[in-house]
Structure formats: structure tokens, C-alpha cells
């Protein structure tokens, strides 16, 4: 099995790549992608723990734009200083 940190790192890269092309990913998109990439080396529970790690460490945040997504923290367009 992969470790939580390994999966979290792989998820982080996915989020970063998606954000570079202005695409938003949902937690389930990340989980499905990890299962497609690593097969039996990961499962949903592990992916859930990896997402928790990403959020608790502050590397990623949840955002809401109609639905909930996972993104790298950034200044939001609507914000007033």
C-alpha cells in the first residue's frame, strides 16, 4: 500500500496542474484518479486520509463555487481588501 503522504503529494500535484489550467477538482475526482493510477495500492479510506492531510497541513483548502472543490490557497476574485 502507498503511504498517506505519498498519496497526498500525488493529489497535490494533480490540484496544482488543474489550477494552472483553471480547472477545479472535487475530492472524488482526486480519489478516482488515485485509484486509476495506483490500483490496489490505494483505497478510498487512504484517499480520504490523504485529503485530510492536505487540508489540515494548509497545503490545500476547500472552496465553494456552486459545489465544493479542493484548491491550493489563493486570493479569491471577489475579495475586498
Amino acid at each position, binding site marked *: 500500500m502507498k503511504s498517506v503522504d505519498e498519496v497526498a503529494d500525488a493529489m497535490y500535484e494533480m490540484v496544482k496542474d488543474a489550477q494552472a489550467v483553471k480547472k477545479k477538482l*472535487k475530492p*472524488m475526482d482526486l480519489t478516482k484518479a488515485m485509484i486509476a493510477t495506483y490500483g490496489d495500492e490505494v483505497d478510498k479510506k487512504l484517499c480520504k486520509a490523504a485529503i485530510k492531510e492536505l*487540508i489540515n497541513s494548509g497545503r490545500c483548502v476547500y*472552496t*465553494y463555487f456552486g459545489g465544493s472543490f479542493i484548491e491550493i*490557497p489563493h486570493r479569491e476574485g*471577489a*475579495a*475586498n481588501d
Partner: protein
Amino acid sequence: MADNLPKTPQLDELEKGGWPSFVKEIKMAAKGSPMAVDLLGQLEQSYTEKIGHWKHGGIVGVMGYGGGVIGRYSDLPDKWPNISHFHTMRINQPSGWYYTSDALRKLCDIWERHGSGLTNMHGSTGDIILLGTRTEELEPTFEELAKIDFDIGGSGSDLRTPSCCCGQSRCEWACYDTMGACYDLTMHYQDELHRPAFPYKFKFKFSGCPNDCVASIARADLSFLGTWRDDIRIDQDAVREYVDRGMDINEEVISRCPGNCMEFDGKELHIENSFCKRCMHCINIMPKALRPGTDTGATILIGSKAPIIEGALLSSVLIPFYKMEPPYDDLKELIEEIWDVWAEEGKNRERVGEFIQRVGMGNFLDAIGLDPVPEMVAHPRENPYVFFEEDEDEDEDEG
């Protein structure tokens, strides 16, 4: 500060009449809250121009949580600087909405220190709604609330804050412990409440009887409606007392029974319980004479929602009768099965009821491993969404 209130001739109209007025409340709050002052100004401007002046924020929140904070910014921050940020916090209400005065005072004190002081008790999800604060006040508010044992509720694509009627704490008709069930499932699913992982929102609502005081059948993805499977308890003396005091039992009760299963012979009321729909009508009309049975539990229904993306849906029966006793292990297994299938196959912003409509109830039941039962059919021959397949053995037998 109240002397500096902006002129609000249009809002002032909403103070007239005998009903409660949110304008009156905001003006009262404005005596000590600059945010409330600017809120009045911006609102008056919106009423005049017929244009909303709020922008939605999607990122603000507290560390580790994905729900419970709804970002709002004014699009006129130079004109109304005190509401340039005006975020809403949803706070998980206590089961049954019971508070001590002390808890309410502490909540309000925290909110006056960190926000506008304006609250909405309660939002349609059931949460305590704290209206209007700045981004940098979110964490300090959260920390202070945690010290008095309050936590943030749900928002976004997560489990929304579960809610329940007061149930057995006050109501003689409660068929199970709504507050206990609501609290148990809220605590058990903290991850799902704070970490959005679903295609869209998901709501539990617990009503202790079919009167459904929390409108669970219309507003919850999973509705828990108290019911009974034995006979309605009848106190015949009390029935006669109603009649002696002038109640037209045929007109007011019997003719309005949707099961058409009641009869009064002048002395005794008879109910053919196998035809009773558990609608509560007769019990509501003659509360001294009739009560739900003693073998109680809940009917669990799935799929209701208010109209947002698609039209409104009412829940339909999933489990006709469940005992609703802690620790609710098999219920939790079923819930997780539903979430697994829906999270895997549901489209973005597709409620579970819409998902079931898309894939078909038969396929959905198959996927969650539940056998169809007749109670799932709303009207015979009307929604035959379950197709009973003949298995091979039967084919051979027939052959």
C-alpha cells in the same frame, strides 16, 4: 451611532404593521454596530436600484473545515466600508433547539465582539446563523465558540447540519428519540459534515411522528419519520366524551380518514389498523382519545429536495419500518452504502433524489444492496420502477 443612520424611506415601510420587522431589528443593532448601519444603507440602495450588491466568496473558512462559512463581500466597499466583508457563519444548533439563557447570552456576546451582532435564529437548515463578519474574525470566532461547546455546521457539498423535532423531550406523539438519533448521527459523521466529499449537499431530518414538524419529507435527502406498526391506542370513554361535547365525529374524523378504515357505532370507535395510513389525522383531532401504538420506530425515506437546480421532490419510502434504537449500526451501514454509490456515480450538484430519478430506483436499490418491497411503490401501477426478473430456475420450471 443611531443618529448617523442612513435615510431609509423604503426600508421604513417594512416597519409598519403588526408583524415582526427585520428592519426594526437591524436598526436596534445599529445602535452599537457599524456593520448594521452600513447594512441598512446598502439594503436601501438595493431596494432603490432593484440590484443586489453582494458578491459571493468561495474560499473563506476556518482551518481544516470545508463548510459552515458562506463568503459575502459588498460590491460597494468604498461607499459601505463596514460591510466590505460580510461573511455568514452557520453554527450547529443543539438538537431540538434547546438553549439555556446563559448559552444564548454567551453566543450573542461572542458575535457582538467578532461580527455584526445580527443573527438569524434559525436558518432553514436549522443552524444558528451568525450574519456578517470579516475574514480575519472567522478563526477567533470559531475558537471562542469552541470554548462554549459550539461547532460550525455544514454548507457546500457535505452532510448538512442534521436537525430534529423536540421528540420525546416534550411531545407525547414521538415514536422514537429524535434528539438522540440526531445527536448520534451528527457526532458519528463529523468528517462528512466538515469535509465536503459528496456531489452536492445531503440532509438528515428527524421527525418523531408523521406530523413531520421539521418537514423532513420535503426537505431531507434522508427523512426519518416516526411511526408505529401495531394498533392505534383508543380510549373509548374519551371518544364518547368528544362526541358528547358536540364533535361531529363522522364529519371531522371518519370521513377524512385517508385509509377509510374508521367506524363509529354510536358507542365505540373501530379502526381497521391494517388499512391505516399512519397519517395522524384522527390522533391530531382527538388527542385525548387516540394515541400511536406502542411498537414504534421510523419510516426512512429518501430523495426529497427544494427546487434549486431541478424541481422539488418529496422523499419516497426506503425502509418501511426501522426500530431506531442506538447504536444504529445497520442504519449507518446503509447510509454509507448510499453515499458510496452516489459519490461514485453522482454528477456535480446532483442531489441523491435526482440521481435516483436518473439511474432508476430499481438500479439504485440493486447498487445499495436493498431488496424492493411493496411499500416503496407510491401508487399501484403508477410508478413501476422495480422490475422483478424471473430467475432461471423459474424459467426451467415453467419450461
